[in-house]
């Protein structure tokens, strides 16, 4: 049933229905409301879970690593510098193939200090071996948690996952969300069956050291699991549709792309604004569409090529920047890679960093720029730096 609630609270409720046995998190804006709500649920005995209070994000994810290795379904959430502090543990969790699910309320990284949204935090962990899915609205942010657990815990996959949604823009927004009931979630998401676990009676060590003779092979195994995750995400999305009537089976989703000459490619909540902008541009006869990327890791390169096959111009919106690459964001660089040799003109636009508001007219301006061949730039900079 649809009810109106804050994004963070909808996510917290979804997490509750996933029945995590251990939660460890350290509060940081704008993730705070999620973990506050979960702590309250545990304190009120609405959620039977061990809530481990820690002194830092490093410890939060370390506790999750240990609990997951011991065979529990675990959950954490963070943002920005908090995720940066988890950097080392992120690689360990993925390398040990522990299916931890973590919400990322996306926020920019300092310095300069900024509490506002962009996606630099999760994007900076793109090579860590975690899956990364991005939500357009709070319904999707909620639903992706169920899917993330299902895929992460699949014994063919065994990879951790970030469920990313834009900080404040989604986390602090009240809007209608259909949060499923416990029984429905139970029917979709079976209880956690660890592939292997730490057990004093039958001891193993995880993440043992690998010599130069073997290290590469372990990394290759993670790559292969990521590759398999593409199908697993589709399957889990399809099964979700069967259970709940909302279809997340596609790693990319086209909007009015069928006859489009120009396509905008984007990740996360900005897609909503882009859709409204496209409707307006279509109203004045312009053939513009959107390709929304839901899964950034694994990266759906083939699906992107297929979806954009018929367009002549692509404008990629990046709420992150790979400093030193000129004006390239992670998404732009990878879309260019996916479309290499296709003859499609791809331009990247760094936009919305540090909470800079992106409006419909900005999308129209970017479309104009792309169609006139101008791009690979920061969009909307203040005059004084130009």
């Amino acid at each position, binding site marked *: 049933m649809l009810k109106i609630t804050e994004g963070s609270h909808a996510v917290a409720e979804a997490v509750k229905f996933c029945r995590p046995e251990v939660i460890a998190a350290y509060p940081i804006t704008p993730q705070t409301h999620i973990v506050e709500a979960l702590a309250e649920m545990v304190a009120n005995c609405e959620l039977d879970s061990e809530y481990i209070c820690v002194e830092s994000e490093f410890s939060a994810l370390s506790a999750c690593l240990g609990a997951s290795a011991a065979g529990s379904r675990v959950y954490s959430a963070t943002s920005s510098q908090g995720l940066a502090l988890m950097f080392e543990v992120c690689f360990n969790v993925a390398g*040990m193939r522990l299916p931890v699910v973590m919400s990322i309320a996306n926020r920019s990284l300092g310095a300069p200090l900024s509490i506002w949204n962009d996606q630099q935090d999760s994007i900076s962990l793109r090579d860590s071996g975690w899956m990364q899915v991005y939500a357009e609205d709070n319904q999707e942010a909620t639903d992706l948690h169920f899917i993330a657990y299902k895929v992460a815990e699949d014994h063919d996959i065994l990879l951790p996952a970030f469920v990313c949604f834009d900080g404040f823009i989604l986390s602090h927004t009240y809007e209608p969300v259909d949060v499923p009931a416990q029984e429905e979630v139970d029917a979709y998401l079976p209880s956690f069956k660890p592939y*292997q676990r730490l057990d004093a009676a039958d001891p*193993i060590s995880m993440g*043992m050291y*690998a010599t130069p*003779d073997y290290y590469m092979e372990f990394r290759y195994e993670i790559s292969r699991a990521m590759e398999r995750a593409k199908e697993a995400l589709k399957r889990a999305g399809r099964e979700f549709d069967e259970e709940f009537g909302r279809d997340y089976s596609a790693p990319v989703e086209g909007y009015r792309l069928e006859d489009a000459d120009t396509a905008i490619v984007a990740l996360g909540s900005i897609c909503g604004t882009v859709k409204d902008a496209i409707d307006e541009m279509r109203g004045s006869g312009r053939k513009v569409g959107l390709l929304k990327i839901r899964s950034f890791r694994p990266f759906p390169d083939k699906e992107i090529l297929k979806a954009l096959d018929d367009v002549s111009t692509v404008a990629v919106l990046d709420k992150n920047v790979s400093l030193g690459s000129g004006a390239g964001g992670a998404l732009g660089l990878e879309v260019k890679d996916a479309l290499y040799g296709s003859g499609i003109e791809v331009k990247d636009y760094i936009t919305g960093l540090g909470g800079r508001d992106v409006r419909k007219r900005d999308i129209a301006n970017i479309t104009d720029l792309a169609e006139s061949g101008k791009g690979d730039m920061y969009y909307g900079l203040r005059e004084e730096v130009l």
Partner: protein
Amino acid sequence: MVLNIGCAARPGKAGDNKTGSWRVFKPVFNQELCKKCGLCALLCPEGCVTVNDEEEYIPDYDYCKGCGLCAEECPADGAIDMVQEEK
């Protein structure tokens, strides 16, 4: 080596790893000069020096790797001599 998921492994036994073959010098204990302080047993990184019922400190040459720590730290002059191993 098998590529176990997550590079997981069953625990091995240090006992399987006979480090005695690493030696170039070996400690030779002279029980006459020993003061029974027990430092050698305490400090040996292989934990291979043990004390018997006669209160004699004796290294286990299967594991003694010849590092010489015991001889270096022994307070009794001449109680432990490092002598070249004959191979």
